[in-house]
């Protein structure tokens, strides 16, 4: 595609530069403020490694849950034809705009020990979600899955469905149509949705601390550890842990651009 050359506009350039600097300075702050002398000691301490491990396990688990359950939901919203579809879409995307701490309260009322689902679940099986790793995963899924559903739904909507007709007319059964046509065509939105969801889960704070608590080694994820360090006066620790999250996020962003191939 030929791109028209934009004439230079000084006002535009200045505003854009300000916006870019706005994003750059906090990063510079993190890097210059880091206690480089003992960063390795901090991030290899047991509590930091525990938090990182928990963060990675929980965020990957929520991503898998999003793939497993979010994909069918996205499919239904994109292709289903039923009453109340708009309402369903609204409900599933509500956690995107809801303050996460409100989500945490709502989760407690639903799946907490006294919750409408949690109480019967506890009585029947002895399983209780709050203050467990499973609880962290539930909180992160609640907040992050909508990103996956929405991205994949729009991918499914924008693909040319007649290509599936073409595949069927060529003798492909439903599974082959899905595997060889639908999936490759929605691959960019699938990849984008997965990364967005994972990133959102990794950064989750409000719903997690409200629903799953802050038990080091059990439910204390990286963002919680950062917050606790900072609020208990250990700024150096908070900065070091933050840097770890920055690095992980950057790696994932680069990886996403590789696989999705999009700009």
């Amino acid at each position, binding site marked *: 595609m030929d791109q028209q050359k934009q004439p230079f506009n000084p006002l535009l350039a200045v505003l854009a530069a300000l916006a870019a600097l706005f994003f750059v300075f906090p990063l510079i702050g993190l890097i210059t403020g880091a206690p480089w002398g003992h960063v390795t000691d901090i991030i290899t301490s047991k509590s930091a490694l525990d938090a990182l491990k928990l963060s990675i396990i929980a965020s990957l688990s929520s991503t898998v849950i999003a793939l497993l359950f979010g994909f069918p939901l996205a499919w239904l919203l994109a292709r289903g034809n039923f009453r109340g579809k708009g309402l369903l879409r609204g409900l599933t995307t509500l956690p995107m705009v809801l303050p996460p701490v409100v989500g945490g309260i709502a989760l407690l009322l639903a799946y907490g020990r006294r919750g409408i689902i949690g109480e019967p679940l506890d009585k029947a099986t002895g399983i209780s979600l709050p203050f467990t790793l499973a609880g962290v995963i539930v909180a992160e899924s609640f907040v992050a899955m909508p990103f996956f559903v929405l991205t994949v739904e729009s991918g499914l909507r924008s693909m040319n469905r007649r290509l599936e007709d*073409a595949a069927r007319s060529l003798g492909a059964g439903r599974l082959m149509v899905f595997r060889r046509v639908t999936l490759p065509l929605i691959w960019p939105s699938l990849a984008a949705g997965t990364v967005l969801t994972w990133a959102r889960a990794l950064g989750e704070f409000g719903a997690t601390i409200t629903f799953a608590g802050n038990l080091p080694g059990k439910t204390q994820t990286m963002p919680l550890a950062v917050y606790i360090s900072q609020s208990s006066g250990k700024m150096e620790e908070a900065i070091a842990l933050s840097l770890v999250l920055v690095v992980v996020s950057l790696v994932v962003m680069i990886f996403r651009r590789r696989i999705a191939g999009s700009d």
Partner: protein
Amino acid sequence: MLDADIQLRLSRLNLDIAFTVEAGEVVALLGPNGSGKSTTLRALVGLLPLAGGRIVLDGTVLDDPAQHVKIPPEKRPIGLMFQDYLLFPHLSTLENVAFGLRAKGTDKKAARDKASQTLARLGLEGLAEAKPGSMSGGQQQRVAMARALVTDPRLLLLDEPLAALDVSTKTDVRRLLREVLRQSNAANVLVTHDLLDAVALGDRMIVIQDGEVVQTGTPAEVTARPRSSYVADLVGVNLLRGTAHGTILDIDGGGKLTCAEPATGPVLAVIAPAAVSVSRQRPEGSGENTWPGQISAVDLMGDRVRVRTEGTPAITAEVPPAAVDQLKLDDGGELWACVSPAAITVYPP
């Protein structure tokens, strides 16, 4: 051989058509937009359920709603070429063509070999690894053709195969398509709204309008004796309906003409515009088939000019461009038309 009786209801169309296509035959389905041509193809492929009727291909029932028979699209031995090709954008040319073979269980090596052969047959040897998005319209068209042909379908359906091409590539691709269809021993159905495609490629024509068959026959028969104003307009002739009493024709809507061959009862009459002569004054001495009318349109058609007069009956005449100036046709007004009785072809409706 295809034996189809297709009945279905869509919001804007009631389709009810029956036709047969022999193996090796090419039937051109001709009709205006929205007449049900593409719908017919979708029904044959199995992408649209029938409300009634039956589709039988080589003795196998593909669709019979009364008996609750409906073979799914992927199980039908049918090749369909879509109007907009619908090539898979994420697959190479070779993978696009091999797709149908792989779907039908051919192993990878054999599928690629056969796909390569088919590509070569259509002159696409060098493009096996190219993606559809990087190819010209004519090349995409040929890949789509290869993809539909490669599985040796028993029924080959071509939906407006040349419509998306520009004029310069159309002629070449039409020649290639004719070659391919001549070698095919499938039942071939070609959907088009272009008379030239239908005449050049079809052994037989089926004209459909508003979901119904209005005429069938060889291209020569259909173009010589159109039964609908749609076909008459495509061919570019005057079609009149009327009642014959010997050599006198009573035209529906008014007017009388004398023809050379006697007939009786309701008839259709065709008059070529070139056989209609025009003058500003009533022609001297000729009483027969001479009548006045107001000029309603003057159009340039190639190097000829067509002038329409709204007399009884209304008629279109073809005159040389010089006549526009000589007869001051652009001024409108009254014009006399004159047709020789021998120039009127009369046939039963």
